[in-house]
């Protein structure tokens, strides 16, 4: 009776997820790998030409040997990167310990305040340090008049490192705080039962457990510091780093190939740093989160509580000082080099009102489009990467994560170099900005989705399939509703960080497509400080409102989004 059955029956394969994944891969190849590859090749081409095998040259790199400016920029980048990473870690770890383990009031508020530096336009805050500590800054003037103390110049290493540490320490803080809060209390309890003193437990159990998240946070700080453009552009003065040198090569000389070579060196040192950090962290893989939902006991001693409160609130005060100064400055109407402004009012807001509408619209629109595209493709690709096995999976993973380690300005340079001319000339369009935002930020959604899907019992999807649902129905009715919080959290980060994105935008914007960060940068360049501050204040406010609304909707706290 079964004779008619073919011997090799084939079932229809579901291609929908593969199409989505393939499309993502195509975009990544076309707008990430290909531009990076082009950049890599063009860095070996003579100035003004495209790479061909005939014209290969090391000319663009030899400047790293011959030009003092290149050499110091390289060395400055490394010094600043290391100093910022080490100082951020030193500053953040005690704060993280205090918040995780000491009885303190207003912890949710502390956590929310700590992420404000992450969502503010970076260089506006940077300029605040000039207002405070510059030659005619408020604090500098008081110090000089009262104590005869001359502040070291804020332009240069001091200002850059200070501003970067305060803008980035939150990463280490959030990672370590999260880990210390989640540590299984049984670990410490068993140490205590074995007779260890509190100090000994701290030294031998708690702190070692905090090392992997600390290094993970430090790695992000390092990557940010090595690729940061806004802060060295504002506060660098004579001190050039690779990102500002790149900008200089393009906007000064329009020498794309020289910029490519610098980009390559920038990526190389970032990669070396990451490999070193991963190597240090490799042997430390603990699973510290236990099965109990009970939290570790908090320290309640009077002494430790005073120290903890002073330290944490002091740190937050310093870290939020730039934002406060920005808002203060935005109300200053006449400030002709005097100690304090002579008049206050809303004139700056009146002045910028007509000028901010368009950049704000642009920023919100570009960020929104890029976020939606990231959500759609990041979700599908993340789902496939977690649920399916296919050859070359590691390559997809690596490609998507690549922009994490690429300084934003490098991605900008690469896209600029590749799509500047030729059949697909995209420079100056909104599309190139959306594409740049997409390749730079899809990893956030991708990672959120991979994490959320790995937490989701595969059997749940199988149960849906067995009950009679095809892939898309299962996705719509089961998978997406269950991972929605993860997707939304990722989307909020993507959207808010894109509103004030600077490093990539600075390379790719055009007169038609100026964003708020460009508007602020232009005001700073033309010394319209108060106007820049007003735009900055509006941006901070809009971003904060968006984050707060979004966190209300998904029921997660602000700090949870960024951990």
């Amino acid at each position, binding site marked *: 009776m079964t004779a008619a059955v073919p011997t090799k029956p084939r079932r229809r394969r579901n291609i929908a997820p593969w199409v989505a994944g393939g499309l993502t891969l195509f975009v990544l190849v076309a707008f990430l790998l290909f531009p990076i590859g082009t950049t890599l090749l063009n860095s070996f081409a003579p100035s003004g030409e495209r790479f061909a095998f005939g014209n290969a040259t090391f000319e663009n790199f030899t400047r790293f040997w011959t030009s003092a400016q290149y050499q110091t920029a390289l060395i400055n980048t490394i010094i600043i990167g290391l100093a910022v990473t080490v100082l951020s870690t030193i500053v953040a770890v005690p704060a993280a310990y205090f918040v995780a383990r000491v009885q303190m009031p207003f912890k949710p508020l502390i956590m929310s305040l700590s992420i404000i530096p992450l969502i503010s336009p970076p260089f506006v805050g940077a300029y605040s340090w000039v207002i405070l500590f510059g030659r005619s800054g408020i604090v500098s003037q008081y110090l000089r008049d009262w104590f005869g103390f001359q502040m070291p110049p804020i332009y240069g290493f001091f200002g850059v490192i200070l501003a970067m540490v305060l803008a980035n320490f939150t990463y280490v803080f959030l990672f370590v705080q999260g880990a210390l809060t989640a540590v299984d209390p049984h670990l410490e309890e068993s140490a205590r039962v074995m007779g260890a003193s509190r100090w000994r437990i701290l030294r031998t159990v708690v702190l070692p457990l905090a090392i992997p998240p600390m290094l993970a946070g430090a790695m992000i700080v390092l990557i940010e510091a090595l690729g940061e453009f806004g802060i060295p552009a504002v506060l660098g003065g004579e001190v050039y780093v690779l990102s500002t040198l790149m900008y200089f090569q393009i906007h000064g000389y329009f020498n794309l190939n020289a910029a490519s070579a610098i980009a390559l060196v920038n990526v190389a040192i970032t990669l070396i740093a990451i490999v070193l950090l991963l190597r240090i962290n490799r042997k430390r893989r603990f699973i510290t989160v236990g099965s109990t939902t009970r939290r570790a006991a908090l320290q309640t001693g009077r002494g430790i509580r005073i120290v903890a409160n002073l330290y944490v609130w002091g740190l937050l005060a310093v870290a939020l000082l730039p934002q406060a100064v920005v808002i203060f400055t935005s109300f200053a109407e006449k400030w002709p080099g005097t100690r304090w402004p002579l008049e206050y009012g809303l004139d700056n807001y009146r002045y910028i009102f007509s000028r901010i509408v368009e950049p704000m619209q642009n920023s919100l629109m570009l960020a929104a489009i890029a976020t939606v595209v990231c959500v759609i493709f990041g979700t599908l690709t993340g789902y496939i990467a977690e649920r399916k096995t296919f050859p070359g999976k590691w390559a997809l993973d690596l490609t998507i994560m690549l922009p994490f380690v690429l300084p934003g300005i490098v991605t900008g340079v690469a896209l600029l170099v590749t799509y500047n001319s030729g059949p697909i000339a995209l420079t100056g369009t909104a599309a190139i900005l959306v594409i740049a935002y997409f390749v730079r930020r899809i990893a956030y959604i991708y990672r959120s989705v991979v994490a959320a899907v790995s937490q989701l019992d595969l059997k749940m999807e199988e149960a849906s399939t067995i*009950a009679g649902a095809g892939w898309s129905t299962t996705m719509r009715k089961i998978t997406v509703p269950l991972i929605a919080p993860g997707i939304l959290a990722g989307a909020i980060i993507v959207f808010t960080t894109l509103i004030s994105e600077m490093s990539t935008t600075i390379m790719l914007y055009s007169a038609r497509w100026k964003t708020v960060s460009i508007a602020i940068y232009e005001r700073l360049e033309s010394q319209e400080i108060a106007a820049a501050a007003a735009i900055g204040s509006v941006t901070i406010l809009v971003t904060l409102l968006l984050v707060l609304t979004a966190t209300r909707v998904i029921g997660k706290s602000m700090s949870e989004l960024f951990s």
Partner: protein
Amino acid sequence: MTQTPKSLTVKDLTKVFQTPEGPTTAVRDVNFEIEGNTFFTMLGPSGCGKTTTLRMIAGLETVTSGDLLLDGEDFRRKNAFERNIGMVFQSYALFPHMTVFENVAYGMRLRKAPETLIRERVTETLAMLRLDGLEKRHPADLSGGQQQRVSIGRALVYRPDILLLDEPLANLDAKLRVEMRDEIRRLQKTLGVMALYVTHDQEEAMAISDRIAVFSKGRLMQLGAPYEIYTHPTSVFVADFIGKANFFLVTLDGDAVVAPNGARFGGLPVVQTVDEDEWFDRTDALMMCRPEKMWLVAASERTGDTGFEGRATRIQFLGTFVRYLIESDQARSDVIVDLPAFAPGVSEGDAVRFGPAKDGMVFRKATK
């Protein structure tokens, strides 16, 4: 309520997984046939291929080679979601964002059933599983037993042709497990649905099944009713896995079985076994005896029976019988003897003599 009986044929079913270490055969040439409302259990240790076989039948795993036929129709050409089967998972896999009612109604909704029928069927199914009143709860608010009932309801509500159960009781506590297995069988018989059940628990398999398929290392070792498998195992593996068994290294001398100490036993059935037990490198044959089919006396006592010597290391009183654990160099490992009452004059640490009372059997390696 009962459905038209179906028949499932599994023919030369094979599954090869591609692993980084190269291809691994998880299921090799498995054949069986299930008729009507049989409760069929696939039993074996973890990694034996039973779950993979179940998942191939479900369509969750691709078939490397072989045939799956439902009522003679090729099952392999259908996607998992087209096969009209129900499946119950060890982890329940309830949808946490849906109420109990919506979880159970899920399959009905996918089949585009009219709302009144959905309401009627779901209510009826929940009542049958004694879940009435919990319709509006979410899975997180239910106990483990209740969750498993919901998941059974979800699998049965649309009257599947086959009900697949993948270790459904493994996450429940011992008492609930016994209760639930009787309930599952009662439901299955009431609805008249064919059931394929996977477990590693041999007691559970014996209690619930009409037929048991014992798996080892991807092969189906033996297929039969529980009693048949227990009393007539065809391999050392099955004898060892189902119930408790004692093994003695013996040689064959014509019809007689000779132990190393010279004891001779006659009239035992000899089975050629396919399994590759490493003991066959050291001996011709293994004699198997169930613990309850053995005699045991103090070493000082003289009897006419031939037997083995050893030392009783532990004596356990287990209510309906007394269990003796015996250390002996004449057995493959420690020997278990179950007696209806205490053997006179034997205390822990004493030397004993023991041997098969009846119904022993001998396994000989298959000659190739």
